[in-house]
């Protein structure tokens, strides 16, 4: 083993421990709590141990690089962590551990005899493989870790595989992730052909940007974009995230999507001066994802699908930042790089705080009410005050409202876009992207007003909602911790700036431009100070209001419903109505479809009924991929004959392929190319 260091040993050890955290539980007594507690303990210990080297590498300039001899073809296994990997490692070690604690309450072994142990095993494996992807630096190791991650996520997400919807979503995810992996295979091969080795390391000055570089970039965009949920490769995401148990959704949405973005960053970091269209393309895809995700989120009625679409929006915001940074590298504009990538990376960190918060909160709601349908909820803030308040913080954070953390990262992205348009050597695309993000932000605000308002405010719309209850401590503590983090992280973001600088420098190391410190180009500290002042002003106004109201008589009465004396809970504005206006205008062809409509007739109308539902599948899937896939599936129908279903036949295929390859290489030896 070459290049071993204490940081590397600790990091690899914690990854191994994380991977094995669910294993002892497999042999524990079924239904007993020993296995699940041990698994959670191991996951927490491993994560805490892993955070140490991650923080050391990100903030204190540590690093590690080691080569393991490998029996497989493809050269030695190269493992390394630079600040860019370390930044992405932080959520990997934070969110799954909190998810494991949450799982003790949410997916208790005693209540889930059939799938509890399986879920914990794959959760540990998922977390560990994500960490492995982030430290793998040679093609073969990377693709292996990537595939383990994709499959662990598949098994974790399809925990409830007896539900047809979950099976279908899992199937679509499997197809999507393997289509992406195919892209990565191609990318790895082309990269190997250019550099002559599987190691993803570039010489000083970076790899030359040739035609094959653009092929690598496009393949990376497909392979990693499919994992990140970037439009138009996002189609698997809403179903998979909605069908998974909530703490799995939290890990997938909060962490796994970011691993896809990491891949794009890792590959683009290899090149010296990327062509301008790379950044432009990412900027366009990012802004489109942001708009699309926000618009679809506003139209959803399923609690978790809404959150999943909002993840697409946030991935779009991050990609927009990456796009600005790429443009900065091709135009040699250091401040675009610092602002764009700084904002993107900060959003990576902050999204992995507020999105898990929202998914875990949604899990508590589902646990309490037994449904994911928002229109059956209402008034939950009174039943679950603490979770509800934490959820409100999450909603405000994801809508980028100051002084919560989401604002600070979006602030940097906006600043990068405005700089890119206002300075010399302007990028016109950036001038359009800023208002597009503003529109997406406005729509996302509408979506989260709807989410919080319909679920937690007003009066309960159904029996289930009326009997909701605050979850147990195992579930509540992670939620409250994440809410506190969302509240504090934005105001403390100046402290994170050195880490962002280090990661940005690692990314742009081959560009040979001096990147300015984030603190020098963005007034993060000033914004944080004034954000705290805003919080103070809000508190002051609240205290004054409370004083004014308390002094006078306060009574309760029914709400004013245009003179209607007996408003009922069912007359409240529903979530579908709330989002309909936006959904119908921004995405007219894919908005909710009318299922049933019986309008009142005559002077004394009897029964009238209207029901509508948002489509259960993503529009891209429904309108583009499915017709396409069906057409092609018919053409390939004859190939079914090859699928015998007997192992021996497949072995024959393998043997035949081998012989054919051998024959080919022998033939090539006979007729050498001129």
């Amino acid at each position, binding site marked *: 083993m070459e290049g071993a260091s204490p940081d590397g040993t600790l990091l690899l050890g914690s990854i191994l421990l994380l991977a094995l955290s669910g294993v002892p539980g497999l042999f524990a007594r079924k239904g007993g709590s020993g296995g699940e507690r041990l698994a959670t303990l191991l996951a927490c210990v491993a994560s805490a141990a892993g955070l140490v080297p991650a923080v050391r590498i990100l903030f204190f300039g540590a690093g590690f690089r080691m080569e393991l001899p490998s029996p497989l073809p493809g050269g030695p296994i190269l493992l390394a962590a630079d600040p860019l990997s370390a930044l992405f490692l932080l959520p990997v070690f934070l969110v799954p551990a909190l998810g494991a604690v949450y799982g003790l309450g949410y997916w208790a072994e005693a209540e889930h005899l059939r799938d509890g142990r399986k879920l914990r095993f794959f959760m540990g494996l998922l977390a560990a493989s994500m960490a492995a992807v982030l430290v793998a630096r040679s093609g073969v190791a990377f693709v292996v870790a990537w595939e383990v991650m994709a499959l662990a996520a598949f098994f974790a997400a399809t925990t409830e595989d007896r539900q047809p919807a979950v099976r279908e979503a899992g199937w679509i995810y499997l197809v999507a992730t393997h289509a992406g992996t195919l892209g990565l295979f191609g990318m790895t091969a082309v990269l190997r052909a250019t550099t002559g080795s599987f190691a993803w390391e570039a010489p000083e000055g970076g790899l030359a940007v040739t035609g094959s570089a653009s092929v690598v970039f496009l393949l990376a965009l497909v392979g990693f974009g499919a994992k990140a949920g970037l439009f138009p490769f996002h189609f698997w995401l809403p179903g998979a995230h909605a069908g998974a148990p909530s703490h799995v959704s939290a890990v997938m949405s909060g962490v796994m999507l970011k691993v896809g973005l990491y891949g794009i960053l890792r590959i683009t970091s290899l090149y010296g001066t990327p062509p301008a269209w790379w950044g432009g393309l990412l900027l366009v895809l990012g802004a489109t994802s942001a708009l699309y995700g926000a618009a679809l989120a506003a139209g959803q009625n399923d609690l978790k699908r809404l959150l999943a679409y909002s993840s697409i929006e946030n991935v779009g915001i991050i990609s927009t930042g990456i796009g600005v940074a790429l443009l900065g590298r091709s135009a040699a504009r250091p401040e675009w790089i610092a602002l764009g990538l700084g904002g993107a990376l900060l959003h990576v960190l902050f999204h992995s705080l507020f999105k898990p918060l929202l998914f875990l909160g949604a899990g508590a709601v589902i646990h309490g009410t037994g449904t994911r349908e928002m229109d059956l909820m209402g008034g939950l803030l009174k039943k679950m005050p603490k979770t509800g308040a934490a959820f*409100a913080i999450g909603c405000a954070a994801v809508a980028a409202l100051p002084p919560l953390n989401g604002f600070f990262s979006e602030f940097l992205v906006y600043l990068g876009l405005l700089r890119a348009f206002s300075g010399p050597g302007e990028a016109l695309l950036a001038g359009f992207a800023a208002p597009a993000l503003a529109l997406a932000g406005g729509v996302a605000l509408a979506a989260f007003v709807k989410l919080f308002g319909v679920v937690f405010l007003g009066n309960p719309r159904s029996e289930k909602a009326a009997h909701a209850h605050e979850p147990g401590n195992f579930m509540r503590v992670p939620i409250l911790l994440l809410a506190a983090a969302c509240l504090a992280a934005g105001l403390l973001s100046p402290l994170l700036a050195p880490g962002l600088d280090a990661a940005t420098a690692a990314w742009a190391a081959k560009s040979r431009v001096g990147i300015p410190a984030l603190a020098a180009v963005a007034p993060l500290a000033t914004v944080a100070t004034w954000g705290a002042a805003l919080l103070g002003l809000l508190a002051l106004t609240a205290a004054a209001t409370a004083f004014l109201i308390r002094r006078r008589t306060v009574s309760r009465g029914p709400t004013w419903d245009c003179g209607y004396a007996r408003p009922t809970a069912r007359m409240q504005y529903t979530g579908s109505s709330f989002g309909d206006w936006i959904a119908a205008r921004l995405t007219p062809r894919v908005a909710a479809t009318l299922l049933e409509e019986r309008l009142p007739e005559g002077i004394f109308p009897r029964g009238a009924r209207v029901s509508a539902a948002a489509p259960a599948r993503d529009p891209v899937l429904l309108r583009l991929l499915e017709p396409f896939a069906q057409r092609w599936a018919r053409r390939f129908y004859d190939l079914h004959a090859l699928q015998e279903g007997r192992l021996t036949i497949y072995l024959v295929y393998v043997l035949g392929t081998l012989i054919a390859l051998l024959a080919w290489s022998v033939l090539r030896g006979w007729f050498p190319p001129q």
Partner: protein
Amino acid sequence: MINTLVHVLLVLALPPLLPGVIARTKAAFAGRNGPPLLQGYYDLARLLRKGSVLPSGSGWVFLAGPVAGVAAPLFASLLLPFGGHSAPVSFAGDMILFAYVLALSRFFTATAALDTGSAFEGMGAAREVAFSCLAEPALFFGFVALARISGSLSLSTMLGTGPGWVTAGAPLVLVAASWAVVLLAENCRIPFDDPNTHLELTMIHEVMVLDHGGPAFGLVLYGASVKLFVLSALFLRVVFPFNVTDPRLDWIAFVAGILLVALSIGVVESVMARLRLVKVPQLLVGACVLSAFGMLLLAR
């Protein structure tokens, strides 16, 4: 220091005057006397002394709406230059904070409406968030254009580009026109909404606050007038980006300008009818397109 003090005093004291000016203008057009100019202050004094009735089933969110509705626009005013004086708080990118602080008040106003459990207020909340999300890009296209003209990312220098009217007159006209629409839409004035009808006929803002009474309603009215004041000041600085040399004259010019904007809103409200609801988004998209063209004219 003294300028900051004047700034804060103005934004605290002046806003309730604006609805009075608008009402008097409309009355003059209709041949009536109209309410006293200081009616806004009288209303506030009366409301703050009243008791309140809270809708059954509502919680802290119901009161968070009025609180954020006052605190957020007041805070936003600190980021805005008033007349020739630069803002008390100014840094690169302060206009982003400005826009999102206003979004903060929108979030809580709309959720407060949903907390009542009333169908009607829910409808108002839905309209508020829907129309505002179209106003947002119009605002940002304007920001992008102004940042480009001035080469600065801070409101105090972005908005003070007197020479901009010489070098980039056409884009500024487009941005000003677009922001005039934003000013009317965000404050729910005619042609978007009629704040005078107050009950069922009002479609957006006033709908959301039907259940607020007493001090809470006082805060709502005050917050709405502060927002009107702040957005008027923003608009004023685009239309009139010049500094009068003397600081005192600057303040006087600013107050006169704000009153003039209020007067113009009164004129618009007198000569126009409210649009049908389905037409509202068209006008807002039109505003976006105007400022987008303003931005495009600047790109080479």
